[in-house]
């Protein structure tokens, strides 16, 4: 898998990350993640908690604390350049400027002691070398862009004076301030009310239209991913098990885990079908099962699943080998297409 060619925005290949614990085996948080994104693409990254979503995003940002984190293998090609080969200082200049991030809980992730405006303008000064007046004007423009009406008043406010939705908008304004080409949104709506969730999703879609940035939308909620994402990658125990365009993934999921995930949530168009919970839980990163990590929970599992790790292969209705990356449907399972037990 992974996007080939020079036009790719992001091409993560075989990324493996482990954490050294105080005792016992190191926790293998990522075990060879492949993830490719085209410029302007919205990629949903879906998985249960503990599957490696946040480690992936933190690693992309270059913010994994080391120690205890260790990058064992792989590369992160961002616009063709390997981020893992950069110095700490070069990496810092990429953060916020070219790759920006929006976090889950704006109330915790905004600094309580600084005004919203200051928190935005300090980035503009730092990365774009703007003067005070210019940065303030830009901040007002950004506030308008993310739907913070009465920009000037909001910019003069402290985070605690704003509502949850406004805080997340402010956070987004901050993230897009330097016009990054990749925006990582890690569960950006999880802390918000349902009505606000939709507003924020719409904002994200609108920003992509306007600014053309690629967005890695990380969520455990398939329903949200279905609304915003162009393509979806499903992560399980530190590996991408399935990647496909949105319609393909939701319409004809191939990996048993994806299928079970889809059966475990109520989707509007699947009226009448039974909701199921996936038995068991995500394996402990210190003791990932051998072979396919999902086999203990998989209804299709056979003997070879517990010994052979399935490689990711492409399965698509398309023909040409040079299909656009976003159209590929890749699955890592021994039994693609096998009949589903009821």
């Amino acid at each position, binding site marked *: 898998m992974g996007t080939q060619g020079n036009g790719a925005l992001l091409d993560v290949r075989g990324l493996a990350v482990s954490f050294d614990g105080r005792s016992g085996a190191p926790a293998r948080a990522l075990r060879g993640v492949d993830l490719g994104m085209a410029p302007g693409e919205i990629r949903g990254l879906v998985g249960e908690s503990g599957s490696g979503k946040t480690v992936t995003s933190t690693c992309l*940002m270059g*913010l994994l604390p080391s120690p205890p984190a260790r990058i064992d293998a792989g590369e992160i090609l961002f616009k063709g350049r390997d981020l893992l080969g950069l110095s700490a200082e070069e990496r*810092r*200049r*990429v*953060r*916020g*400027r070219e790759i*920006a*991030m929006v*976090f889950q*809980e704006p109330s*915790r*992730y*905004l*600094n*309580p*002691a*600084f005004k919203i405006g200051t928190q935005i303008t*300090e*980035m503009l000064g*730092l*990365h774009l070398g703007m003067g005070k007046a210019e940065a303030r004007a830009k901040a007002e423009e950004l506030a308008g862009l993310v739907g913070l009406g009465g920009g000037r008043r909001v910019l003069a406010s*402290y985070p*605690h*004076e704003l509502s949850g939705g406004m805080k997340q908008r402010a*956070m987004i304004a*901050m993230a897009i301030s330097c016009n990054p080409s990749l925006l990582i949104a890690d569960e950006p709506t999880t802390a918000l009310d349902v009505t606000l969730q939709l507003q924020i999703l719409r904002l994200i879609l609108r920003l992509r239209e306007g600014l053309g940035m690629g967005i890695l939308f990380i969520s455990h909620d398939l329903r949200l991913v279905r609304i915003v994402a162009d393509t979806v990658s499903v992560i399980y125990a530190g590996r991408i098990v399935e990647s496909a365009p949105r319609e393909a993934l939701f319409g004809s999921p191939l990996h048993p885990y994806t299928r079970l995930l889809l059966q475990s949530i109520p989707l509007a168009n699947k009226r009448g079908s039974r909701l199921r919970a996936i038995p068991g839980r995500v394996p402990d990163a210190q003791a990932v099962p051998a072979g396919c990590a999902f086999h203990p929970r998989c209804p299709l599992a056979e003997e070879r699943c517990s010994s052979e790790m399935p490689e990711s292969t492409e399965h698509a209705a398309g023909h040409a080998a040079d299909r656009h990356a976003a159209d590929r449907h890749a699955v890592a399972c021994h039994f693609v297409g096998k009949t589903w037990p009821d």
Partner: protein
Amino acid sequence: MRFLRFALKRLGRLLLTVLLISTIIFFVIRVIPGDPALVIAGVDASQEDIAAIRAKLGTDKPLVVQYGTWLAAVARFDFGKSLSTGQPVVRMIFERFPLTLALALLGLAISVALAIPLGIISAVRRWSAWDYLGMVFSQVGMAVPSFWLGILLLLLFAVKIRVFPLFGSGSFRHLVLPAVSLGFARAAVLLRLTRASMVEEMSREYIVTARAKGLPERMVKYRHALKNAMLPIVTMAGIQLGYMLGGAVIIEQVFSLPGLGRLFLTGVYQRDFPLVQGGIIFIALVFSLINFLVDILYSALNPKIRIG
């Protein structure tokens, strides 16, 4: 506007505190056995003399009336006249106060200058040599009583090596050793707090955001974390100024400095009730005033406090 309301509220609280303290002092003094009139008159005074003195002092009137008169006087900042010198208590206090205040302020400056930088370095470079130095310093500082340190400093820097004067007052050099002995112990406490506060702020989520924004590490630490960490530090430093004023009482004895401490101690020895009363209220007032200023400063640093 919001800030003004906050300030007024705190000012009201200050006045209430002082009122409460004046009341407590008034009644405590009345409860303590011993009639000031007897003390003034001496052992072989006649009943008429004593009655005359009581009438002059007002202690022959009912307690409620005395209380009212007392409060009215306190409100006018009139603590009466010293029994031993006959001078107004207020004037005596203000003659001595500048020295004690200078001593306390210098002590605070030393405490802050030692504790805050070392505390920040300890937090930022945890388990480094600096951190261990800070730990040793704060352990020693908390264990050593300030008067003992004062005596030690005197022996070392005024007797052995004659860098500073042994006693007397009137110049900055006279204040250095007492201020160091005052500030040292307080610095130990402040250092622990600074380190803990900074360590805690560094673990907050907004630090991740600051890093994700691509800010250089020094901005993450000394701008984003430090501004939040300063809140408890400022409060603590303010409270320490109050303690310094109290601690000065003892240190003034060690260094024979004619400050408030000496004055009040003499007042106690001589059963000079107006002086003792006035002194306690004055100290309480200064203490409250410091707390008031700390609150104002705290709210300027922390925008959240002004709501509510």
